[in-house]
């Protein structure tokens, strides 16, 4: 293979214009040579003999006339055992290893192996010579943290393949050949325990996609009960700054009932991802009793890291998610924030001098966002097992205004919308998901009628509140006032959840159903009050008891006795016909 090279003829920000001879491919990787450093870049437009490349690093010091080496490969990630517990940058460079080799700062033009070359994995074969396989079929497995990491037929091999040889059970590195397969044309292919896959191509090594219906339990009450997410589904969390998007993502990454969590910190504060990086290894996953890090991959491309790599980081994270989905696992990808990713596209589009759309975002913004969320899904694999990739993205709309292009394009393609509101976060009502504006197309595990009743009260309560702002409490009838108090009650004891309390932070589905039933009963009950003041005192009392109930361990003695005292309080005030 001849190494294709080109010459830089223009530099503007992180974009290079390069002349070349011969063949180059769209999205091919090139390296701008600057002294010893090779600056990774990607072809994003070709025009005649001119190629436009976005550079994933700072272009400082590059000159017109410098050489670009083309690689003939699309921007890819390495897939194989050893991904879990890793912390990568947007291009799959392992950050801890980089720190070890280069100290405090991220050096330019250094590329490290994403997966350890030397580490041995204990391989157990699952096929025999002569077996017919296809891309994505399991050839064997190695243990990776608590999972069986299946070694698969690489996704780039098409058609039916025959296993010609397979290694015996034993310890191998990822580079050793563990199998040889023959394709339909009789050509032989060596297979090792890892392969590369272009990040921008969705992995499709499965039978078909199926409708996501199984709830993904996040243990956040307002989400699970009111605005649920399904395994393999998509949801978005737009909100102004300070409304708690990142905290909500952090809580979800801890408590969500999935096998694997991939956190893509895309153009956000470094401090936040540092918290996750430093705390996760210490935290215990209640499902497995192991460290949370064992089920986590972090892709950290924070706001001060190169913009083009930010654009790539979202794709890198998605590809890793699809890879684990192929093993029959439930994967949750949390992207924070997709607005930064969209802004990276905007910067690039500006440098390409494309005709801008709304707020200077490129015209293809919507289709790119759609493509990204469409990579989520529950799939049926060739072995009839199911795997899922759920995508949850935060959106940071300018000025907190949801009418902007990224929020709108996202709302078109996701199936659940958790809109955060500044009023709720100012009032310290966390999580600040707006109960009237948010929606979800998925079904909750809590009975529909129960949820609907609560929703009704929230809506009516908000209307009464509006009215009270004008006429004052004196001008509000006792009946309306009680509706308002009931809605405030649901808000305080159910929608709001204390993320810093070990018990309240995560509510399991049984408990959610149980508590919702209790609330349903209260909402349906009529109470005997002489005036507004008495009603208020009663509901404040009830609220206090309920909050204490929330703080007590599920089905503990404290839980039971608190429940009794709540029932007693209610019975005392109920109207008896």
């Amino acid at each position: 293979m001849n190494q294709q090279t080109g010459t830089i003829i223009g530099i503007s920000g992180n974009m290079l214009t390069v002349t070349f001879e011969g063949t180059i491919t769209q999205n091919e990787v090139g390296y701008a040579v600057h002294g010893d450093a090779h600056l990774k870049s990607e072809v994003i437009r070709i025009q005649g003999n001119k190629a436009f490349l976005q550079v994933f690093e700072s272009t400082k010091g590059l000159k017109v006339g410098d050489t670009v080496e083309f690689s003939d490969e699309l921007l890819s990630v390495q897939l194989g055992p050893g991904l879990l517990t890793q912390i990568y940058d947007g291009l799959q460079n392992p950050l801890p290893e980089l720190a070890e080799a280069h100290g405090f700062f991220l050096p330019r033009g250094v590329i490290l192996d994403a997966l350890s070359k030397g580490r041995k994995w204990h391989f157990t074969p699952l096929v025999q010579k002569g077996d017919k396989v296809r891309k994505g079929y399991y050839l064997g497995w190695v243990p990776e943290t608590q999972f069986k990491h299946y070694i698969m037929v690489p996704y780039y091999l098409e058609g039916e393949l025959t296993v010609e040889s397979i290694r015996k059970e034993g310890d191998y590195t990822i580079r050793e050949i563990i199998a040889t397969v023959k394709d339909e044309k009789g050509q032989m292919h060596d297979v090792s325990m890892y392969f590369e896959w272009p990040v921008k191509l969705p992995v499709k090594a499965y039978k078909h996609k199926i409708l996501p219906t199984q709830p993904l339990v996040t243990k956040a009450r307002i989400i699970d009960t009111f605005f649920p997410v399904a395994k393999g589904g998509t949801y978005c969390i737009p909100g102004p700054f300070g409304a708690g998007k990142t905290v909500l993502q952090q809580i979800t990454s801890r408590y969500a009932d999935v096998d694997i969590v991939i956190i893509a910190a895309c153009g956000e504060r470094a401090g936040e991802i540092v918290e996750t990086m430093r705390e996760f290894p210490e935290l215990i996953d209640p499902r497995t009793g192991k460290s949370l890090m064992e089920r986590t991959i972090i892709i950290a491309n924070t706001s001060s890291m190169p913009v083009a790599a930010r654009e790539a980081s979202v794709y890198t994270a998605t590809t890793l998610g699809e890879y684990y989905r192929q093993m029959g696992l439930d994967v949750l990808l949390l992207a924070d924030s997709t607005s930064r990713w969209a802004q990276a596209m905007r910067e690039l589009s500006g440098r390409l001098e494309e005709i801008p759309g709304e707020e200077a975002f490129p015209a293809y913004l919507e289709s790119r966002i759609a493509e990204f969320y469409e990579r989520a899904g529950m799939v049926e694999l060739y072995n009839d097992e199911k795997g899922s990739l759920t995508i949850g993205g935060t959106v940071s709309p300018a000025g907190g205004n949801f009418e902007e292009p990224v929020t709108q394009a996202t709302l078109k393609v996701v199936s659940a919308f958790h809109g955060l509101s500044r009023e709720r976060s100012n009032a310290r009502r966390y999580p600040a998901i707006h109960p009237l504006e948010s929606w979800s197309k998925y079904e909750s595990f809590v009975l529909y009628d129960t949820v609907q009743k609560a929703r009704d009260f929230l809506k009516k309560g908000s209307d009464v509140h509006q009215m009270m702002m004008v006429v004052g409490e004196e001008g509000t009838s006792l009946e309306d006032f009680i509706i308002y108090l009931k809605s405030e009650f649901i808000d305080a004891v159910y929608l709001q959840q204390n993320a810093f309390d070990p018990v309240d932070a995560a509510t399991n589905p049984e408990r959610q159903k149980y508590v919702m039933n209790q609330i349903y009963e209260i909402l349906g009950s009529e109470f005997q009050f002489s005036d507004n003041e008495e009603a208020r005192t009663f509901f404040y009392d009830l609220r206090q008891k309920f909050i204490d109930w929330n703080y007590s361990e599920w089905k503990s003695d404290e839980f039971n006795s608190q429940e009794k005292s709540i029932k007693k309080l209610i019975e005392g005030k109920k109207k008896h016909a």
Partner: protein
Amino acid sequence: MRKIYNKVLSVSGNVITVKATDVGYEDLAEITTRLGKSLAQVIKLEDDIVSLQVFAGSRGVSTTDEVRFLGRSMQVAFSDNMLGRIFNGSGMPRDGGPEITENLISIGGPSVNPAKRIIPRRIVRTNIPMIDVFNSLVASQKLPIFSVSGEPYNELLARIALQAEVDMIILGGIGLKFDEYMKFRNTLEDGGALNKSIFFVHTASDPVVEGLMVPDLSLAVAEKFALQGKEVLVLLTDMTNFSDALKEIAITMEQVPSNRGYPGDLYSQLASRYEKAVDFDGAGAITILAVTTMPGDDVTHPVPDNTGYITEGQFYLRNGRIEPFGSLSRLKQQVNKDTRDDHRAIMDGMIQLYAQYLETEEKRSMGFRMSTWDKKLQKYGKLFESGMMDLSVNIPLEEALDRGWSILAECFSTEETGLRSELIKKFWPKKTESKGTEV
């Protein structure tokens, strides 16, 4: 030495173009005009056409002026001799002292590897109760002060600089008014802090482009000192001027504006500066306090809006006071659990009561009847404003907490405060002492 070019092809805004080869991106050039010498930086290369932004502005640039490329990007000296000195936006002395050329370092260096950061956990005491008690400043935090023009934000910065427990202070002034800058200098001099400070000052009368370098100069020097184990506080005022300078260049370069004329990369530009705030694993820290003036008091304006998404909270300065609502230190939870038992309780309790006071005030202005409870709140609100919120209050954290208790005791009975009983037992002032004390 380096090649010299004598033909300026175009002059547009503060950007000039020259035909030249072998020029690196972001390299510096020196241009000699009839008005003197100025630095210029390469911002675009297209074949042999080089676009440069001229720091001193394009005024007086003629088509035959001399352009000499320096073959390097912007650098700044780094030495202990810089302490107590004042430099301009190009890094040249502005205090009449000698030029410092030792130990030159590049500015705008690479970003810190997240794996080398640690979770911040040291409080930076400022002796301002609205900060220390209610929104503690934490070493390595990046916090802007959102404010409208005319508010005493620079006085506030100067006071924090004077009182904060840090090893050194770097002030980056962008578009600073001359008298503001002199006031800063005098305040620090009078307070005896000048010898641990370095100033990079670009005044409102200096060419706009020169202001663009100020944050990078300040932060590059800060970073080096932090790596030596120093606790550095960087003050930047005013970042809205910085953003406006970015806007000016972007428009001159005919970039497509995204929002109100600001370039699409405003977020990344601001982030790459603010993200220099860091607590190094095994070395010092950089804390950044910046002023962001909000045109028209509009927090959705692109500059404060983008800033809010980048920084770890914000202080709202309004009517000469730090607003308790809206102001937020995202990192306060990391430190306020270790200061004193009652810190969090006082922080939440007093703010909740103050919120109730504001509701009462609203009711009063609408003509509703005032109950006894309302009257208590009114008394509380006034004491809170004068004893805690007023910027002239200058007391250490512990004293501020004590004062909080005495204000509460003066206005309310113990149950009315909603504070936990064990704390009340420990901290509630004895009756005789609380009457008419210092507040």
